């Protein structure tokens, strides 16, 4: 049979695409093309990920020995704070919406661009201005309040650069709000003919839910950090108990945004997951409607649970009980998603490509992160575990094991679409494995050491915790190699990678029907959608792999 089959021609890059439509610096910095803006975000968030990562290196180096020998206590406070600020505000929150969301949402719904292209570019500039303030605070003495800016320390005690950092977070908030607004309007108004709500890819649903949180929650954070700055400068007395204020009020306002912000970080990764699982198993996502509504449920219920960050902050026992019950509730839609992904994989023809490895890694790590979240929702247990390394391990399983695994999985999945070229699959698989093992070695011991009572945010610790901390630091070094590898082979692939073709994975979805890289207007002509999302394997077109 093989001897008679015609040899398929090797795929070639299209002559005209968004990457060669203008080659000057101005054509990039003044672009209104959502795909180019996505790449601007990609470069920016990668820089902030590296900066945040370098602070993490310092933390793990310091904790390799029980004595506080590398960094003074003050310097250590600044290092873990800047790690948190850089990673949360300037990497995790914008990473997937800014890059993959920006690139894919218009293409996935069959539109030429986002609803407001200029506003989209403005979001990137606003993000960069906010990040400049954040970086300025790093260079100008650093910030030592923790990424949470807790009062009264941040308002009356800290001598570090609180105001520029708060300003950076405030400005960055506008970028987030505008991106969310742009996505909401785009998804409502720009869908191609026939692209009904229930034909949307789940990636779009999850970004819709994320955008709702961005628009509804971010203003509260923005005004709260402004109040912190104002209290520092003008001694307002909103959070200062000496002036009739209440420091716990800050925590209410801060976590009203910052807990839903966890979902801003993880919901887009869940959207990526749905695409990866379906494509790698050649099956429609099990229970599409449930997964779609689970995104909305997470976005809505996520706003009712913030008090679980404050079980030991002096809030009333009754409030704690309510927040505890509600926190258990938010686990339900997350679990729905995990069960549905695994049900999708059941009896699927799983292809072991790099994105699949990230998808499977995500399911495992996110499940551990989610289940340990239930430990922390139980008030009694949380009182023991608050401010220990158990918390650090828990949220890293969500943020790194969930969001970054989703982000990297998505980057590997859509890289051929974004650039038209494939990366080295072997190196990519090795790096995915290194990240998975490195991650677990870094953070699993932290559950144990936290349960045993090691508090977070100290540069020294009792010697009996050293072995677990050495394991953690060793894991971090493996993780660092795992993260450095993609940076090198992805950049290498830009010039030397094999030409990918329009649909290297044999995936369905409008983005795979256009060229790789897509033309500036995304499609030669506006698509007419007459099929549901994930019609595997029936609708696989142009599969060249």
């Amino acid at each position, binding site marked *: 049979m093989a001897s008679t089959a015609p040899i398929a021609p090797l795929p070639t890059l299209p002559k005209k695409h968004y990457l060669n439509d203008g080659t000057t610096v101005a054509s990039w910095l003044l672009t209104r093309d959502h795909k180019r803006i996505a790449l601007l975000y990609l470069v920016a968030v990668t820089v902030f990920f590296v900066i945040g990562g370098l602070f993490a290196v310092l933390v793990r180096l310091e904790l390799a020995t029980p004595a506080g020998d590398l960094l003074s206590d003050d310097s250590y406070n600044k290092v873990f704070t800047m790690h948190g600020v850089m990673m949360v505000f300037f990497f995790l929150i914008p990473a997937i919406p800014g890059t993959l969301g920006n690139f894919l949402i218009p293409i996935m719904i069959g539109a030429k661009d986002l609803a407001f292209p200029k506003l989209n570019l403005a979001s990137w500039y606003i993000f960069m201005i906010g990040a400049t303030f954040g970086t300025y605070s790093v260079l100008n003495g650093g910030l030592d309040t923790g990424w949470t800016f807790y009062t009264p320390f941040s308002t009356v005690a800290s001598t570090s650069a609180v105001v520029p950092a708060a300003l950076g977070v405030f400005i960055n908030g506008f970028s987030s709000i505008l991106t969310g607004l742009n996505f909401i309007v785009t998804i409502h108004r720009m869908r191609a003919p026939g692209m009904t709500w229930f034909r949307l890819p789940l990636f779009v649903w999850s970004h819709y839910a994320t955008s709702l949180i961005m628009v509804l929650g971010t203003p509260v954070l923005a005004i709260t950090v402004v109040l912190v700055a104002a209290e520092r400068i003008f001694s307002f007395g909103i959070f200062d108990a000496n002036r009739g204020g209440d420091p716990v009020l800050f925590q*209410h*306002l801060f976590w009203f945004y910052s807990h839903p912000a966890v979902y801003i970080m993880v919901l887009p990764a869940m959207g990526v997951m749905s695409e990866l699982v379906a494509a790698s198993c050649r099956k429609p996502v099990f229970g599409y409607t449930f997964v779609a509504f689970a995104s909305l449920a997470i976005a809505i219920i996520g706003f009712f649970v913030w008090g679980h960050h404050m079980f030991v902050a*002096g*809030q*009333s*026992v009754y409030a704690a009980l309510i927040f505890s019950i509600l926190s258990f509730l938010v686990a339900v839609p997350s679990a729905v998603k995990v069960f549905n992904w695994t049900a999708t994989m059941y009896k699927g023809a799983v292809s072991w490509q790099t994105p699949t490895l990230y998808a499977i890694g995500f399911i495992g790590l996110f499940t551990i992160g989610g289940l340990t979240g239930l430990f922390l929702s139980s008030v009694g247990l949380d009182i023991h575990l608050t401010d220990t390394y158990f918390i650090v391990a828990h949220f890293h399983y969500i943020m790194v094991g969930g969001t970054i695994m989703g982000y990297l999985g998505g980057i590997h999945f859509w890289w051929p679409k974004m650039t038209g070229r494939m990366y080295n699959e072997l190196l990519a698989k090795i790096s995915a494995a290194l990240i998975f093992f490195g991650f677990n070695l870094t953070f699993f011991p932290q559950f144990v050491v936290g349960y045993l009572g090691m508090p977070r945010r100290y540069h020294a610790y009792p010697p009996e915790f050293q072995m677990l901390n050495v394991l953690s630091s060793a894991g971090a070094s493996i993780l660092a190699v795992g993260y450095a590898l993609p940076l090198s082979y992805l950049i290498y692939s830009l010039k030397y990678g094999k030409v990918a073709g329009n649909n290297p994975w044999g995936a369905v979805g409008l983005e795979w029907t256009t060229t790789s890289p897509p033309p500036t207007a995304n499609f030669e002509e506006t698509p007419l959608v007459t099929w549901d999302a994930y019609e595997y394997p029936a609708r696989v077109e142009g599969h060249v792999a």
Partner: protein
Amino acid sequence: MSENHQHTHIVPLSVYYTIFAALLVGTALTVWVAYIDLGALNTVVALAIACTKATLVVLYFMHVKYASKLTWAVVSGSVFWLLILLALTFNDYLTRHLLTYG
């Protein structure tokens, strides 16, 4: 939805001037009432005036009064989210005297 053929409602300038005057009166009222000690009602009165002013701004200056049902849904949703913030925060403050840890 019917936004596609939505027509712009032209508001006479006199409406804007009237609302502006009402806002100025509200501000003057806030300052005046601040000098009178109403006890527990101090905050309530100040907030009531502020909320009335905010409602006027939203309805007239932001044109919500003349907007589509979708806009009303967005505004109602936003107010509902504010109520979540207030309700669950007061769920803490108003029950602290009953029982608090430690």
